[in-house]
């Protein structure tokens, strides 16, 4: 099949040392020119629209910028000190806290790469400081970051719901228990590793250190409160203030203010080792924006944004190929025509999505596959909400398996590790997610219990 040629080409180019983005883009472009009537202009348009037409991807640059300000401006170090004081002495403590941080963050953000970006740089640095290997740290974050699309809110769930006409609210509720379960399984695995392998830990430093480090990290920790309130509001006081994408921009601005005006670790109020009070240098309110320190943080964040988005944009050219050639439809059609029972059908859906997830970004794949398998699922008596959760979990796994895995790319960029090393690092925890997928597939109750409890039994139309 032509499509095998395409994938061989992609992998071959990557191994030759062609940048990932160009390997994806060049293979897809050649394929489109050979096999379809798509014009080069249309490919250029796809590249431009990768940014201009995907507003939800904006969370990526904004969160990169926020973590950039946090690590340069001393916010991250203070949070790291606080976390080490709290859990650094427990077996696997920091790694478990890292998973917990990803779960918390997943409840704030609808996207998995954004979760890795926001949590990754801080947690990986913290784990390194206590003595974990970079591989272990990156493997944990890369996997836990995928919870971003399982724990609501989730962009992928919104896409699934609109493609199949199920309730978004139900889908969100359905993600809660599986999200907690997946997070729990990762934590248990870490604990097991920690005890078995004798993972490093710090000495317990006492309550005084917890209190001192908390006071020091207060303004950084407040970011979580600001984002939580902004996204969900306070009942009786205020409605929500911003969307998950906007939250990322607010986080960047907050980190900027805390770094420059409160901690004064960088910017115009920092002079060697001294911190100048704002009242002595009020012009800093303006000069902060043009300070070389600010520029360097923006540049660093911009550079990571550029390399990651260039990959994502070229992955969208690949999506264009698959859509244009109707390849997922062909594969799904061939597999579904065989006429299987319910269990076999779910296995087939898993296989289609796992293969598809190797090469496509989640929302695009869901849009194409969901309408195909949905009617068959309903006929076989599969619950639509359950099917949705299975699909989301498959997407999670797709994000951490090569050759196209957004979380792999983002982790590689954030942790400064080679792709192959991230792949190897993620492997043990990937196995955990696989077990999780099997559980979620065969125990529908995990997905449907909470939505049924909260919203009553589902009415399945058609």
């Amino acid at each position, binding site marked *: 099949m032509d499509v095998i040629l395409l994938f061989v080409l992609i992998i071959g180019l990557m191994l030759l040392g062609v940048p990932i983005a160009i390997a994806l883009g060049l293979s897809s472009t050649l394929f489109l020119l050979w096999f379809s009537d798509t014009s080069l202009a249309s490919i250029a348009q796809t590249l431009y629209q990768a940014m201009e037409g995907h507003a*939800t991807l904006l969370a990526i640059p904004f969160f990169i910028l926020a973590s950039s300000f946090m690590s340069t401006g001393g916010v991250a170090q203070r949070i790291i000190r606080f976390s080490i004081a709290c859990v650094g002495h427990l077996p696997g403590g920091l790694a478990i806290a890292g998973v917990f941080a990803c779960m918390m963050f997943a409840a704030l953000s609808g996207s998995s790469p954004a979760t890795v970006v926001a949590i990754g740089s801080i947690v990986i640095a913290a784990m390194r400081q206590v003595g974990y290997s970079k591989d272990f740290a990156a493997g944990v974050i890369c996997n836990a970051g995928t919870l971003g699309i399982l724990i609501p809110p989730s962009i992928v769930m919104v896409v699934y719901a609109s493609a199949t006409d199920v309730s978004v609210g139900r889908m969100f509720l359905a993600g809660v228990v599986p999200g907690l379960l997946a997070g729990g399984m990762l934590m248990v695995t870490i604990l097991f590793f920690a005890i078995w392998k004798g993972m490093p830990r710090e000495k317990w430093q006492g309550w005084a250190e917890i209190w001192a480090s908390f006071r020091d990290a207060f303004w950084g920790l407040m970011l979580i409160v600001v984002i939580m309130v902004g996204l969900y509001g306070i009942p009786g006081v205020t409605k929500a203030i911003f969307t998950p994408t906007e939250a990322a921009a607010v986080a960047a601005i907050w980190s900027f203010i805390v770094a420059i005006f409160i901690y004064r670790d960088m910017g115009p109020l920092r002079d060697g080792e001294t911190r100048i009070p704002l009242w002595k240098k009020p012009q800093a309110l303006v000069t902060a924006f043009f300070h070389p320190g600010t520029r360097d943080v923006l540049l660093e964040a911009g550079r990571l944004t550029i390399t990651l988005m260039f990959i994502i944009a070229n992955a969208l050219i690949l999506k264009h190929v698959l859509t244009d050639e*109707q390849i997922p439809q062909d594969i799904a059609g061939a597999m579904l025509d065989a006429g299987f029972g319910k269990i076999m059908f779910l296995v087939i859906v898993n296989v289609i999505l796992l293969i598809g997830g190797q090469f496509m970004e989640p929302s695009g794949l869901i*849009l194409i596959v969901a309408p195909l398998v949905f009617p068959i699922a309903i006929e076989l008596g599969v619950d639509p909400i359950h099917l949705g959760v299975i699909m989301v979990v498959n997407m999670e796994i797709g994000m951490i398996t090569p050759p196209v895995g957004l979380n792999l790319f983002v982790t590689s960029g954030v942790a400064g590790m080679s792709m192959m090393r991230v792949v190897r690092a993620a492997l043990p925890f990937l196995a955990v997610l696989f077990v999780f997928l099997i559980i979620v597939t065969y125990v529908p109750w995990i997905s449907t219990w909470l939505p049924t409890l909260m919203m009553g039994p589902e009415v399945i139309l058609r």
Partner: protein
Amino acid sequence: DPAGCDDGETVVKFSHVTNADKHPKGIAASLFAERVNAEMEGTMCVEVYPNSTLYDDDVLLEAMLQGDVQLGAPSLSKFETFTKVFQIFDLPFMFKNIAAVDEFQASETGQAMKASMERRGLMGLEFWHNGLKQLSANKPLLTPEDAKGLKFRVQPSDVIIAQMEAIGASAQPMAFAEVYGALQTGVVDGQENAWSNIYGQKFYEVQDGTTETNHGVLDYMVVASTDWLDSLDPAVKDQMLTILNEVTTERNAAVNDVDMAARQAILDAGSEIRALDDTQRQAWVDAMKPVWDQFAEGVGQDNIDAAQAINEKH
């Protein structure tokens, strides 16, 4: 190939943004493809790309002018960049009901609109109905005062922005994927849409209720590029256009049923729908109608008059 296109057939890509089997536009596009593929075997073959999998409405017309997609049916407001005449459908309370819209589109004025973008390279083929727009928010909306100070997510079009300003509300542009969440948490208070979209996007789940304002039109127009149409064999083109016309007649006649089914499904889900009495409705009309004056020049007073002459009859 799932559409079963054979060698020698003219492949026609039809790209749209809704589902393929429940939304009025999706149903019509699928029916058109089914009929062409059955009746024009050997000459023409339609592949439908639903759910924005190929292009969304913002770039569809660009891609069409570029020759990368042959047919599409964007909402009428997307044509306002080509000619302002299309703003007539966004003007609030221009049409009483879908029958009036139908008659206007079939009139000489409406038909002339299809050809109004010819110099830009596009040709309108048929109008497809979706339905009239309703207003929803996180509090009951019975009079325009109820909407004062609220934030409504809208498609950013000049007319809609002016319409929201006229009732003292603010228009908020927002990525479509984030609208549900924003309505749920209260980042924005409300939105306006046709029944099928309110139902399809599940907005009613996170709104206090929907007010049956019928204040605007949300219709589509099937378009193609003039270059592509000219490149077709005249007989093939005629057969395609005949099928398209028959599908249009059939589906437009059924649109009320689809619309009402969506409305009923919202009721069945336990969400409230509020009807307006004559005084309440008049208050909305009085508040919004001044917007007409702002746009009369671009739309053409004669077009507005023609629409109103038809509207009077319904």
